[in-house]
């Protein structure tokens, strides 16, 4: 039987229910300031790495929170930890620690620890 109506493409949608947000929970627990981000993009604007690549700390923040982990992984290690983002952030988010924790969290999630 033919299906009627519309279906939304799986790739476009954030599947909030099935996405694994273990990485986000891990970071929330270790660095509560992760919750404070308002996506202003100050970090990405000042970012040393962002002037060379598509690394965006702001994007990384929101995607991890939504459990869109695959999009984030490959970019994480491009961060130089220079700390300009921490100095710019209007919310006092401890941005560098989030990068370090995210790397650690992905390692742990590979080992099924989280």
């Amino acid at each position: 039987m033919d299906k009627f109506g519309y279906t939304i493409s799986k790739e476009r949608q954030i599947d909030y229910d099935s996405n694994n947000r273990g990485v986000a929970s891990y970071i929330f627990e270790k660095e509560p300031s992760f919750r404070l981000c308002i996506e202003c993009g100050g970090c990405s604007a000042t970012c040393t790495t962002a002037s060379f690549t598509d690394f965006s700390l702001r994007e990384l923040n929101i995607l991890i929170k939504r459990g869109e982990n695959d999009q984030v992984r490959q970019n994480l290690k491009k961060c130089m930890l220079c700390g300009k983002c921490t100095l710019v952030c209007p919310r006092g988010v401890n941005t560098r620690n989030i990068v370090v924790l995210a790397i650690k969290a992905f390692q742990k999630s590979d080992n099924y620890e989280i």
Partner: protein
Amino acid sequence: MSKHVVVIGGGVAGLEVAGQLSRAGIEVSLIEKESKTGGHLNNWHRLFPDRRNSIEVKEYLDGMTHNQRIILLTNTTIERFNRNKGHFSITTNEGRELTADAVIVATGFDLFKSARKEEYGYGIYDNVITSADLEEMFRTGKITLANGSVPDTIGIVHCVGSRDEKVGNFYCSKLCCVTAVKQAVELREYLPESKVFCFYMDMRMGGAFYEELYREAQEKWGVSFIRGKVSEASETIENKLLIKVEDTLAGRPLKMKLDMLVLMAGMEMSEGGEKIAGLGGLNTGENRFFAAADNHFGSNKSNIEGVFFAGTCTAPMNITETISHARAAVVEVIDYLKDGK
């Protein structure tokens, strides 16, 4: 016997309070640290959202206080502030002693000192100015760069000194967004050839007719709005300002060369207010503004009986709200004095 009330601060709130009290037959002394009354109103050109001339509001306030028995003390600051047996004794910088039955604090706000956000280069780069500087340009009718030429591309940065943990101000100053939109419209009006960009974190157009002005700015004046916090500005060889911002809705960093950068300075507790708070033992909140006795039904009352607040010394407010708040303070004071204390 007639009661005597001292009003500290001769800005919008102080003038309104003084006028209303005087009309109610109460003796009023108005203390103003500057040489003339009016406060920040003297520095604004046109007011949001309807862009009426600020002089009209000044005229109203002058009318309120005109012909009233108000003792006006300009160039005056307070050095001592004591309360004993329900009366207040106040000593001014000129050694004058005032005795009052009640005191209204209307010390207003200070504009955030934009040089504190060094990354924006105020005081370092010639063509980085504040919203107050731009008002001054509007008043003189000369909107030019430091070298006298006319700016072509102009950027407006929202939230300078507001919503910023780095300068210790968590709160929203509430009026910078609408000021930015108003000034963007005016810039386009004065300089029809110019391009104006607003860089915002969130557009907070909460007041009456603010959103309409926002719409007008887009529709009629072609102002561009880019969502992202400007992280820093630098100067290029050709004397332009290079700003770094992320266009967060596009998800990409954005670089732009501007002729002029306007910083929307936020509102902070005034230095004068802080001094009074220290002298009088008045409570202040985490945002450093005066803390009202109750946020819902006692926003004019302080922690000290007989001391009342009026206007922006308690929180950022626009002129409409300030005048309403000042009138509410008058009601509180009259009520307080009636009880025969």
